[in-house]
């Protein structure tokens, strides 16, 4: 197992190098120029030239790329063209927000998705199964921005029981930032009301973002459970009179979870990559909106370093998923 993990970690180097090259080239192929984004209406040709020169954009591409790589080798991911802020600092400030949002979305998707998948599989063909199919289709096809705005309108404005946006009520709480995880920081500050408030702020964006993973997890769980239910060992377990709770949890679910875990891993990687729409609608300062703004403004340094960090996290999450297979199914051995 150790060797497997080491080999996968070493593979990171060519993967990330490939990512840097691709992103470096792609963003420069995009129409646009950081200088115009910085200057807006005031982008006179002279001012544009001055900014391009200051940013080093007038130099040959290979020189720019080598300089970027040499920065990476020194663990210097550079700073934003637009704000001059250090990319790593900015990332570390925003990533915890994304982690909280991802956790909320996954909690929502898993706690509903797996039981509902299991239920619809066991009641295959019943009205419950049909309703589950319809619901999951709706979940996958409903646009997040629509769902987000509807949730806000319904639960924050018409029936105001939940906050509409932000990570905590700034009017009521002034929480010192330590980890940038709002729930944790509120707890560290001893503001238990703040912890509850931060959790309440997670509900609507968590539901909006978790709906698609919920639908996918439910469908995969259903399909996987149906497969397992037809296995001989399940029939045997039922035949020998084991209580259905034991059969379901020990034999069916555990064996059915393997493909589900794969999907959860992929979804986690995707969600950690940021959720532009959810973050925009709910005023959530995560990495998705950060990268999106960087793309819109052609902030090359943020795009290339931000995407690199996200690629790193994506690969690591998937490695963790692969490792978890071994625990779920002891027959899997990595060498």
């Amino acid at each position, binding site marked *: 197992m150790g060797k497997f993990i080491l080999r996968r970690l070493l593979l990171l180097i060519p993967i990330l190098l490939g990512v840097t090259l691709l992103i470096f080239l792609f963003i420069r192929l995009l129409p646009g120029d950081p200088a115009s984004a910085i200057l807006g209406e005031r982008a006179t040709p002279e001012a544009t030239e001055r900014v391009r020169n200051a940013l080093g954009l007038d130099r040959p591409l290979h020189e720019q790329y080598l300089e970027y790589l040499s920065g990476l080798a020194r663990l210097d991911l550079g700073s934003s063209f637009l704000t001059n802020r250090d990319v790593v600092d900015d990332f570390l400030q925003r990533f915890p927000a994304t982690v909280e949002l991802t956790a909320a979305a996954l909690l929502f998707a898993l706690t509903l998705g797996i039981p509902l998948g299991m239920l619809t599989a066991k009641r295959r063909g019943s009205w419950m199964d049909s309703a589950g199919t319809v619901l999951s289709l709706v979940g996958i096809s409903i646009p997040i921005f629509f769902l987000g705005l509807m949730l806000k309108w319904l639960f924050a404005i018409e029936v*105001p029981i939940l906050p509409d946006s932000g990570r905590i009520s700034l009017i009521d709480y002034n929480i010192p930032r330590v980890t940038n995880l709002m729930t944790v920081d509120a707890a560290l500050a001893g503001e238990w009301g703040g912890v509850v408030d931060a959790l309440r702020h997670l509900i609507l964006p968590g539901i909006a973002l978790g709906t698609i993973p919920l639908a996918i997890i439910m469908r995969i769980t259903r399909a996987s459970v149906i497969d397992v239910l037809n296995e001989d060992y399940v029939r045997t377990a039922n035949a020998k009179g084991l209580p259905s709770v034991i059969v379901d949890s020990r034999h069916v679910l555990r064996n059915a979870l393997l493909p589900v875990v794969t999907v959860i891993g992929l979804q986690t990687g995707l969600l950690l990559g940021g959720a532009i729409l959810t973050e925009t609608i709910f005023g959530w300062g995560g990495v998705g909106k950060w990268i999106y703004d960087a793309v819109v403004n052609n902030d090359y340094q943020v795009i290339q370093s931000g995407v690199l960090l996200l690629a790193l996290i994506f690969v690591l999450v998937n490695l963790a998923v692969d490792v978890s297979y071994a625990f779920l199914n002891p027959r899997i051995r990595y060498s």
Partner: protein
Amino acid sequence: MRTWRWVSVLAMLVLVLAACGQQAASPSESEGSEAPADSAEPAPSESEGTGEPVAGGTLVFAGARLAASLDPARTSDGESFRVLQQIYEPLIDLAPGSSSELVGVLAESWEGEPEDTTYVFNLREGVTFHDGTPLNAEAVKINFDRMQNFVEEIQGDAYYYGQFMDGFGPDNLITSVEATDELTVTINLREPAPTFLYQITLTPFSIVSPAILESTNADSVDGTFGTDVVQGGTGPFVLEDYVPEDNATLVRNEDYWDTPAYLDRLIIRPIADPAARLQALQGESVQGFDLVNPSDYETVTDEGFSLLERLSFNTLYLGITPTARETVAALTTDDDTENDRTDLEEIYGGEESPLQDLAVRQAVAMAIDKEALIGPFYGGRGAAADTFLPETSAWAEAVAAGVEPTTFDADGARDLLEGAGFTDENPATINFWFPTEVTRPYMPDPAGLHQAIKQMLEDAGFVVNSQSDIWDSPGYLFDGQNGYYDMHFLGWTGDYDDPENFYGVHFGYSQGEPAAQFGCAVDGLDDAINTATSETDEAARGEAWATAAGLIHENVCFVTIAHGDTALAFDDTVQDYEPNPTGSESFRTVWLSGE
């Protein structure tokens, strides 16, 4: 059963959390009875209808973005100014609500007329920076010297200094800044600059604590002044925390040199989408926001919020460039293939531009019913633009005296076109660009405005090809400003009140050539603009700009379309916010009534 248990537990959890929130007082309820969690100040109490300001409370306000940099000298946009002008102050400023009246801020008084090359500023006594160091003449000198000597890598960010002070370095407009005594600063200019005093009212010319500049290594490319939370200003609020994309938290400066702010804390949140800003106000997570979508004005007032109108200081115009097709053709035949614009050449198809004919340009101006655009696109709050200067400008009347307004007349436009030889069989075909992925106060709906004007032009007999490109890419701003488009939308928000900042910036000649954006080569225009720019007598300056503006409008180098008002919305607890046409607004006088 097991499944339903899970579902029930989750549902219970959601309900409990929702209920917990219900138990806590909602923000507006808590204002009158509870101090914010961190505040040691007495709770804001109700003013009991007296209208007397009371101190205390937290105001959460939403803008579209936070500051691009925390170094005022390195910012150039209104959202950055909004945050930074609460913290940093210039020597002099525009009076609240005014775009032309100057008031002393860090300078108690000043000497110097538009025709002078020396300005003397007498600083206020007893002003200290937030870090406790005193404000003195040396500090002001250090700030001006710093900007003049910005290294090249930083010069690109310092747009306003470079633009207003004629670049950087020892040869620019400022020949020297002297600390004449402890509280007297003398600024010497190379030549008279009639708008100098207005220019230094802008946030980038704010004075920063020299100790902070030094400790953050502010003049180096790797300096951290623009990103660190530091206490380097003299303003009514001190920066306490700054989380990009999330919030800027400011607290009252208890040692402010004038009456301190009423608010304990001011939190500015970035919410990019206007609809989401309105929802945040409705959901009580903010108490006010800027840039209300014109289509939401009615909703805001119907729901009992107050709508504060900010009279416009901007102008949308239709740029007309008769030389666009020649410019693009020249690019493509050039040896330098990197700048080839075959994409635009294909659009133009080698045809000559009908816009070269003055009568056709006049027909464009005549075909547009500007008034008809104000209702649907500006919520009825803007104004049709006869000249580049908004009505709030003190120069508007003087300049308008030189400009003959064009009256909307579709039939007249058709006659003009026919007179120029363009008929239904041989129509005048023009390409009309609009930007996507952007809204501006002067241009709330670029695509909609484009469609409306296109229809008006077609009604007058033009054939209009719609073209668009993304705002932030060279595709739009670069191409438009370099004069590659037949016709395009663009606009301008004034930095200060002087015709030079409108007509001069756009139509000033460079090395004997007219501005590429319009290719407006009109006999006598270069001289007229130079005369107007250097004229220091106010009345004569007005007349000179009227002459220059007259030439520009007569030759239809552009068509000014509309001045767009902007508006802020507040809940009923927020009092005494004073909008300014330039957007230069302080929260110092704002208080919460606790209703």
